[in-house]
């Protein structure tokens, strides 16, 4: 085993970790926001909005992410409206294209996950909130969202981990994140096994940290599901 080569490779790949993390963070953030919008449309009761949301979810869940990314990266520039619009300086950046397609795709999956969470909120608890005078955004913020998010968290955790791995696809639209840098190293050294093993280790380490954080969050939000505390609270005076 060539320790010197492995550690050199590791160091080179670690320098690309910030790019991977930026891709990941931005696409999870914007994908999450977009998912909220889609799920709102989906359950709005308006047939037009709900139909659009259904179509959106079908398209982005039903087609390969790689093709979506290619369409955004190579396809958008063919339209004059985009090519000559003020957006073009942004949209010709590989990073922007990668984040855009990752976010668009995860929004489709996340919207369905959030919708499942919403459906799991007991009608009784919603009714109790209405009966006390809550409606609209207050009802969503105080009752619906916290309960739905807790229900959705296990499935959403999986989606987040999948997103971390999907950032690897950005290498194919020339974003120099971990996988992209790994491929460049391989083309220079022809040492496929060692370089990709190092890359895999990096993704494992990142996902380990993310999963730990998510399970901590899940634990913190599950107080009401655990066994009761043993001693009653003292009576206030």
């Amino acid at each position, binding site marked *: 085993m060539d320790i010197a080569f492995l550690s050199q490779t590791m160091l080179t790949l670690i320098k690309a970790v910030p790019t991977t993390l930026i891709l990941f963070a931005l696409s999870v953030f914007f994908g999450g926001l977009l998912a909220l919008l889609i799920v709102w449309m989906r359950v709005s009761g308006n047939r037009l909005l709900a139909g659009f949301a259904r179509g959106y979810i079908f398209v982005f869940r039903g087609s390969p992410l790689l093709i979506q990314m290619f369409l955004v990266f190579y396809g958008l520039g063919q339209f004059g409206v985009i090519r000559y619009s003020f957006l073009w300086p942004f949209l010709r950046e590989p990073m922007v294209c990668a984040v855009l397609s990752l976010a668009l795709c995860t929004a489709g999956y996340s919207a369905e996950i959030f919708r499942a969470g919403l459906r799991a909120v*007991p009608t*009784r*608890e919603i*009714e*109790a*909130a*209405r*009966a*006390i*005078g*809550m*409606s*609209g955004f*207050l009802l969503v913020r*105080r*009752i619906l969202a*916290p*309960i739905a998010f*807790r229900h959705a968290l296990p499935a959403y955790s999986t989606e987040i981990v999948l997103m971390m791995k999907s950032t690897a696809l950005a290498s194919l639209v020339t974003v120099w994140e971990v996988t992209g840098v790994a491929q460049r190293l391989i083309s220079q050294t022809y040492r496929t096994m060692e370089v990709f093993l190092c890359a895999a280790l990096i993704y494992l380490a990142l996902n380990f940290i993310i999963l730990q954080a998510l399970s901590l969050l899940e634990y913190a*939000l599950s*107080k*009401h*599901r655990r066994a*009761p*505390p043993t001693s*009653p*609270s*003292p*009576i*206030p005076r």
Partner: protein
Amino acid sequence: MSGPSRLSVRNIRKSFGTHEVLKGISLDAKDGDVISLLGASGSGKSTFLRCINLLEIATEGEIFVDGEEIRMVKKGGRNQPASQKQVDHIRSELGMVFQSFNLWSHMTILQNVIEGPVHVLKRPRAECIAEAEALLEKVGIVDKRHAYPAHLSGGQQQRAAIARALAMKPKAMLFDEPTSALDPELVGEVLRVMRALAEEGMTMLVVTHEMSFARNVSNRVVFMREGVVDSSGTPEEMFGGGGSPAFRQFIGHLGPA
């Protein structure tokens, strides 16, 4: 008792599809009235109660809470409240206690009780906490205030739900079969709390199967049958042999109260 009218309901009708559940019900509750609504299941008494705070929208009829009429409009041939803001306001003035408690499972008992005062009435949190603790002490579960609903017995949960409704300082309380989901040995603790409330002068509308409550605590008994008020009167009149034949048959089925 003859105070001002707290709750007044005129000619309420409610249909689900072609099935008419309520066929024109009127009811007037004065300040301090405790009215028991009795009837076989399917007689429409829960639906009637839910129409009052608009958890169900009556197909026809008028509702007044403390003199304020709930404004309705026809939309696409269906009756709808004219203003969600008014609905929220009316609901915040009516305490509702459900058969299956309906506490918010992700909040502690104390959080459940202060939720409405803090977020709906927008009152200062510290004040609400102090009041909530006093209310929880009154219903006998102040030592459970930091526990979650799932950690409490049914009777304790229902008492917490009553405290949650009281924290809004309601003008009247609606009880929808508050003891029907409880084990028999837990019914008494909830009824005791309700009795104490009645004695303090709270206006209460209680859908119940507890004949002892109807007889000994309420000052009026309304017997519903097939979507109409079959008969009503004081407990003495109704249970003293003055009810309709249908009512006598109804209580006969349940055995002596």
